[in-house]
Structures are given as structure tokens and as C-alpha cells.
């Protein structure tokens, strides 16, 4: 942990809440990014990131100063985001935005932006985006987290395992299971993957 962060924590523990902004400015985007990978949508990602920062703040008096704040907050954020996804899955009354060709406020549907240029465009059209979203949603929170962090964020398996508090082999198996499931989910899109 560098001096600016250590100083900020000292100030927070001396009663200065605003010093927490230093830590938030440095780490919120990374935490939000990971939360977005796990939750899959902006609103839940912000909620999870905020909750992670609030939890970290309340645990600051017990935080070991020789540890890395970045690793610590990332671990809290992952757990918070996974819990949120599990909570959402359990909560039958939760109706997130659904993807449709024509967005409608009354039906709570949104249109997926097509932001992929070049030769991928034809493949990643609206139908592909829907399939992608559905395929990711079909993964368990653990599989989704392990897969997105390993593949999209390029985090090493050991780090993911530590954050998820599981053995490295379990994290690796979760990644493999996720890719296997995604491959089968996308079979119609790729014209029949084997």
C-alpha cells in the first residue's frame, strides 16, 4: 500500500470521512469493472461496488496496514457482487431489463447497442447479443465470476481462487465448466458448434 493510501486510512480512523474519497478515486473504477463482469449490468455493478466500499469502510479499523487495499477491496467486491447475483436469482419479484428489438419503457425492455466493428459485426448482431446474455445468465454466479475474471480481466487462477475463497483447482474447474456451457449455448449461433 502506498503512502497516500496509508495516510488516507489514518485520517479516516481519526474521524475524517472525506479522506475515503482518495481510496474511492483510486479503486472504484476497477471494483466497478469487476462487479460489472459478475453482475452483467450497470445498475447492479454500481450497487455492488458501493456496498463493497461501504463494507470496506466499516472494516477499516481492523484492516492490516501491511496488506494491499486493492486486493482487499477486490475480494470484498467479488463476494458482494456474487451475493447480489444470488439474491437477484432468488428474488422472483426482480425484473431486470430484457433485451428486445424495439426498446419499450412499459415492457422494461432495452435494445443492445451494437458496438463491435469490423468482420465481427455480422456475427455479433442483436440475436447474438441476446444469446450471449442468456448464455452468461445460465451460468452459476461462481462460474460466471471465475470465467469473466479469468478470460475478460485476465486475472490468474490463483488470485481468483483466493478471492472466491476456494481451492485453485475448484476455481479452474469453474472456468472450464463455464466455457463448456457457453460453447454449447452458442451452438445455434455458430451454426452448430460441436
Amino acid at each position, binding site marked *: 500500500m502506498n503512502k497516500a493510501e496509508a495516510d488516507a486510512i489514518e485520517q479516516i480512523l481519526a474521524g475524517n470521512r472525506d479522506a475515503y474519497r482518495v481510496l474511492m478515486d483510486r479503486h472504484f473504477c476497477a471494483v466497478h469493472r469487476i462487479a460489472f463482469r459478475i453482475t452483467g449490468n450497470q445498475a447492479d455493478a454500481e450497487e455492488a461496488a458501493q456496498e463493497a466500499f461501504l463494507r470496506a469502510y466499516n472494516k477499516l479499523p481492523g484492516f492490516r496496514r501491511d496488506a494491499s487495499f486493492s486486493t482487499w477491496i477486490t475480494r470484498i467486491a467479488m463476494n458482494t457482487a456474487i451475493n447480489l447475483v444470488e439474491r437477484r436469482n432468488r428474488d422472483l419479484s426482480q425484473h431486470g431489463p430484457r433485451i428486445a428489438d424495439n426498446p419499450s419503457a412499459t415492457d422494461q425492455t432495452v435494445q443492445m447497442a451494437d458496438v463491435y466493428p469490423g468482420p465481427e459485426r455480422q456475427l455479433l448482431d442483436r440475436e447474438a447479443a441476446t444469446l*450471449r446474455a442468456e448464455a452468461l445468465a445460465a451460468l452459476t454466479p461462481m462460474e460466471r465470476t471465475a470465467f469473466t475474471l479469468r478470460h475478460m480481466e485476465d486475472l490468474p487462477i490463483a488470485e481468483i481462487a483466493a478471492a472466491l475463497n476456494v481451492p485453485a483447482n475448484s476455481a479452474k474447474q469453474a472456468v472450464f465448466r463455464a466455457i463448456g456451457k*457457453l460453447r454449447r449455448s452458442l451452438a445455434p449461433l455458430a451454426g452448430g*458448434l460441436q
Partner: protein
Amino acid sequence: MTHFSEEDLIAYQLHESSDEAAIERHLDECSDCAAVSDSIAETLRIFSSEPVPQPDLDRNWQRLRGNLSVLTPEPRRARFPRFLLWPAAGLAAAALLVFAFVNIHVTRGGDRIADLLPAIHRIERINHPNTAINGHGPLTTEPAGATDPGMANHLDAAERLLTEVNHTSGPLDPADRAQARQLLLSNAVYTRAARERGNLAQAAVLDDLGRVLTTLDNESPSPHKTLQVRLEMNTSGLLLDIRILRQNDNRQNENLQ
């Protein structure tokens, strides 16, 4: 020909395989495994370019800031002298008995409670959202005495008493002990009122205050008793909590003016 499993091929595509060269050689010769390997690579490619939107830092900070309580460093765990272990256990048992007695006494003290009941009923009618989160400091922005000025006076008196306790090295004088006893009854009523109002953060602080008051009321006069109470009951932390409740009150008053 021995084929590789899907898991082996996923590991190969993720560069996690310990036998990468052998798989590569096999894929050159086996079209079935090569097709599976290609579809894994295609899957990874499809899921590799999802952009992440940028969060609004200022808005998130404003939302977070409102939920941050004032923190204090975690107190170093005091080494408790072995010879004080049994007296402390006795003190705790006595405090428990007295607490039970006070509870019964409060239940029977109908006249005093009857005086306070209108205030409680007024409080009950107000349905405030509970913002309590167990942690350090009372995580509530609700003014403590907004519905009952008696509550503000109670917190003032408790704050003064605790300040006195924190600055006393010897035993408490009889006046302070009498005040602790006097505050006990009203504290029980305000604790109940806060709980019924749904403000669990405030109720938790008052609960802690009740335990300290019970201990102070029943402490035996000895030179180090106040110090012991201070260490065991973390009166400094409680004092801070009470001050935060009072600050909430002051902020509310400033907003009204």
C-alpha cells in the same frame, strides 16, 4: 488414436495446459478435436470484447458519503491481568442480576412509564426507514430527539456522565452514581421507544448505555473500578456514539432554521 477431452482443449486455449505441445501436435492430425478446439476458441472470442461502462465517480461518492459513519481506530486488546479474572466474572454476573432486576422494576414502575407513554405513542406513529448497519458508530442520520425533547436531554445527561467517568481515575462520587441510577429508568424507556420506531442503530447505542449505567450504579468503591469499567465497557466508544446521535440532532435543528 486417443482424443483429448473438452477440458484439456479448454485448458489448451486458455494456455493453462501442461501438455500444450502434445495437444498442438494432435490437433494437426485429428479433425474432430480440432473442430472442438476451434469452437472453444470461437466461444472465447465472442465473450472477449464486452465493454464496461464508466461509473460516475462523483454521484457514487455522494451516495456513499451519506452512509459513512465516523470511525475510530480499533482499540488494542488490553492484556487482562489474571488476578482480575474472577472479580470481573463476579462483576459481570452481578451486573446481569441487576439488569434483570432493573427490567422487572421498570416493568412495575407504572407511574413513571405512564408519564412517558404519550411520547412513546407519538414516536410509534412515525415510521422512519431504518438505516442501521452493525459496525462502528451508530449508522443513522435520524435526529435522536426530533420527536421528543426529553430524549435530547437524556443524551446530554448521559454524555456528561460518561465524560465524567472517562476523566475519573478513582471511584465515582455518590452524586454521579445517583445520576447513573436515575438515568437507568429513562434509558430503558427510550431504548424501547427507539426499537419500536425501527431505529435499531439508536436502540443499540442506548442498549450499550444501559449496560454502562447498570455497571456504574453497582460498582463497588475501589480505586481502580472506574478505569476497569472504562476498559471493559469501552465508554470512550459509547461517548462517541452518543455525540454522533446528538450531532444528528443539531444538524436537523440547523436545517429547520
